[in-house]
């Protein structure tokens, strides 16, 4: 498909702008002006609409295809959530920061405050800041809070390390590095969780925090989590919960009750807001009481029965992590989701997510290796090791699935599993959809035995087939040049 710049015709105009109802301003001196207008596309509105509509048709999405991308919780995004967010589209964030302005934003502030309370109940935390803009920023905020906590206790110089298991998301060590920490990585034991003996040996009083995902990226709940937390706390290290996999445990376990001190929640995963082709997300952070003084500003506080205000001056705060109040539109969707599903609905979400993942695991385990064969939580991890012996790799199976109309699972993550295929069906998929997917996965396994060479040409049904990533990295063409 042509690029929009290739379709552009000099002089063609799109949307008509209003005519000025004020006189023209005196032109600026030339030193302040650009020499030439930016070469943006020149298109009719119809051509623009066709271009983007046709581009959209070159995507798989939750609304068009089963999308079992492990670790990303690609559940159905209810349409009413979109409608809910648009109700707030016209409110300017600065209004709340004007003198006397909070009175004009009681709806927005009240919703943020209540969403924080709901998330605190779901996660077992004492207070939640809504400001972080995505999961990784939530992690960074959480580790900065931990750093501020240690600094306030006079331990800034002493605390040097953050401990992560080798199965962790890459964002965990990357976020801890921004907070100035060095990383200690603990290997996974044969039972599928962080090796507790190696962990015990690695722990010293110089460790500031332990970052865990639970269930972990293998989809397994760590039964030793309380013991790990106790060991961490005995060294005055705080426990960080990566909420990427919260969809598995709502109403079943509250991280704050099993020893975690800080948590981030990915609203776009667990709470049904769309992933937008890469974002926006939202990554609220919950903390236990001892960390409340360090939460970002402005902090939303309840001042009366139904009145809310902003606390902007907080001496111990880590400061702002975003310009305003976070990705409010995403939060409005998540809030609508939580009040619509309610207590029973959220419990059902986790139960059905776990049921669906176990069903797929059981039905496919005769065909694909399961590195850790035990009851899983919301996702299951296979290995294409059997198939790769015949020359068919996880990536080949992914491309086969594309031709059969499925978005592939996450492949090659977690890195500790060779040829990993990580499947997260989510609770919103029906048995019929999963049965059809399972049959296709079985077909792939059979084809890997009967005709392994067939995979190399796949996918065959898409606008492009396999792309030359080396060429892309070498040539670095990241901008269209006429």
């Amino acid at each position, binding site marked *: 498909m042509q690029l929009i710049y290739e379709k552009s015709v000099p002089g063609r*105009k*799109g949307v008509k*702008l209003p005519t000025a109802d004020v006189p023209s301003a005196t032109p600026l*001196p030339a030193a302040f*002006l650009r020499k030439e*207008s*930016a*070469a*943006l*596309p020149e298109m009719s509105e119809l051509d623009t*609409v066709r271009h983007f*509509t046709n581009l959209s*048709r*070159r995507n798989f999405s939750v609304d068009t295809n089963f999308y079992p991308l492990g670790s990303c919780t690609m559940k159905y995004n209810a349409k009413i959530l*979109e409608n809910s967010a648009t109700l707030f*589209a*016209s409110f300017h964030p*600065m209004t709340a*920061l004007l003198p006397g302005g909070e009175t004009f*934003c009681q*709806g927005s502030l009240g919703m943020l405050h209540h969403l924080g309370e709901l998330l605190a109940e779901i996660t077992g935390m004492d207070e939640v800041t809504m400001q972080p*803009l995505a999961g*990784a920023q939530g992690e960074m905020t959480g580790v900065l809070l931990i750093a501020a906590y240690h600094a306030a206790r006079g331990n800034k110089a002493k605390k040097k390390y953050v401990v992560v298991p080798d199965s962790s*998301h*890459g964002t965990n060590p990357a976020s*801890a590095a*921004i*907070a*100035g920490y060095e990383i200690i990585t603990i290997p996974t034991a044969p039972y599928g969780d962080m090796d507790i003996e190696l962990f015990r040996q690695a722990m010293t009083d110089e460790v500031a925090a332990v970052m865990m995902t639970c269930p972990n990226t293998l989809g*397994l*709940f760590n*039964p030793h989590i*309380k013991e790990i937390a106790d060991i961490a706390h005995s060294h005055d290290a705080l426990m960080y919960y990566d909420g990427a996999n919260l969809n598995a445990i709502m*109403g079943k376990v*509250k991280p704050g*009750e099993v020893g975690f001190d800080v948590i981030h929640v*990915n609203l776009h995963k667990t709470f049904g807001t769309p992933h*937008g*082709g890469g*974002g926006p997300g939202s990554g609220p952070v919950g903390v236990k009481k001892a960390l409340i003084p360090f939460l970002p500003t402005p902090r939303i506080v309840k001042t009366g029965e139904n009145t809310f205000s902003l606390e902007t001056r907080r001496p111990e705060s880590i400061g*702002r992590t975003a310009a305003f109040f976070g990705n*409010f539109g995403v939060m409005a969707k998540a809030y609508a989701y939580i*009040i619509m599903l*309610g207590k*029973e609905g959220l419990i059902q979400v986790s139960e*059905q997510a*776990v*049921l669906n993942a176990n069903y797929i695991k*059981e039905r496919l385990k005769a065909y694909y290796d399961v590195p850790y064969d035990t*009851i899983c939580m919301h996702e299951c991890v296979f290995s294409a090791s059997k198939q790769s012996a015949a020359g068919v790799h996880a990536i080949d199976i992914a491309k086969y699935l594309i031709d059969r109309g499925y978005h592939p699972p996450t492949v090659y993550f977690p890195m500790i599993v060779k040829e990993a295929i990580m499947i997260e069906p989510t*609770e919103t998929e029906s048995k019929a959809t999963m049965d059809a997917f399972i049959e296709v996965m079985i077909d792939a396994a059979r084809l890997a035995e009967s005709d392994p060479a067939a995979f190399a*040409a796949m*996918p065959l049904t898409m606008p*492009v*087939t396999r792309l030359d990533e080396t060429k*892309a*990295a070498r040539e*670095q063409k*990241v*901008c269209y040049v006429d």
Partner: protein
Amino acid sequence: MSYCPNTDKEQQEMLAAIGVPSVEALFAPIPAPLRAESFALPSGMSEFETFDRMKAIAGQNSAGSVNFIGGGFYDHIIPAAVDHLSGRAEFYTAYTPYQPECSQGTLQALFEYQSAICRLTGLDVSNASLYDGATACAEAAMMALRVTGRNRILVDACVSPFSREVLKTYLYNLDVEIVEIQPLKGALDREGINRLLDSSVAGVLVQNPNFFGSIDDFTSLAAEIHAQGALLIASVYPVALGMLKSPGEMGVDIAIGDGQSLGNPLSFGGPSFGFIAARKSLIRNMPGRIVGETVDKNGKRGFVLTLQAREQHIKRHKATSNICSNQGLCALRGLIFLTTLGRSGLVQLAQLNRDKGEYAKAALTAIRGVKLLQSQPTFNEFTLLLPMAAAPVAAALLKKGVAAGVPAGEYYAGLENGLIVTVTEKRSKAEIDRLARALQEVLQCN
């Protein structure tokens, strides 16, 4: 209501296939002492009741005040096509294009977005978006630290106070010295910066137009900064780039900004997107995802995520940034906005903003005792010096239904009488006249 489709019968069949008696049995790996005892959430409701509740909450905000506030978020027109096209579910219910063959829609759109950002800023390379303009400042500063290996950042305090706060939050634990240069009448203090500029400086952060609305030309500053081996980072307002000298023309190394004004609603502060563009030589130090052009096995053009060896999922703690999810859909809105307006449309939009701004400036400074803070030219935002403290004036005007501007004293000591007023193309002459009348009335009463 939880959108879980499976019937009891289907669930029984699935449990039988797994070989467990109940769903509860699947939670057996969680030791009993760790189980939650309570889950004190309200009961659920239908989508209709949910929407009524959401309407009631939105209704508790006061709507209808005429908006002359900016501060980084701007009330601009959004062509109808932006909502409709970005509302295509194939875009908004997809995720990061990890599998390029079935994500060419997102990938090509992001490549076109990156190209639009390069063309706007006059720079060579752009990524596929950051969170917002404020975090983009922090990411750009960290880029300058990596590129130069130095640990000192100079920041013009005319940069948005919110961006500066976020920058400090990000860099707090990284052994970096941030030195702020205090404004001189709402503009960059050139002598102040020259006194501090030496070979220990990694980067200098400025903003154009700045928080007071002043326009500057950083061309000569760029040369001085480069002479010290440092980088010039400029935060820019993309709508103003319809008119103003581009960062590339000034010699800026890294341009950043907030993309809210490009087709994203105010939405109480988010989601918007941050953009970042740079000179080609800096590409390996860029944060976040980048889309690159390539060919498939048959030689056909296609697009992929490229230079991923910079990113956290590969490099972990040595990555150029921790960012994973970005603001893809908002960036797509930005691209569609720029396409629907087109080349001449953005020029026209910028002109409209400046025309309205200049009209308002004349109308407001005609009020007795009201002066302008800056001598520099401005775009659609400027700072008034009132004959009294601005905060109570702004509060009184807000009660009259006019959000007249941002009192500067909250962010700048000594500027208690300053009121930063923003006038976008959406404000009519009648509304500007109403602001002038209201301001005059409030000032007379005090």
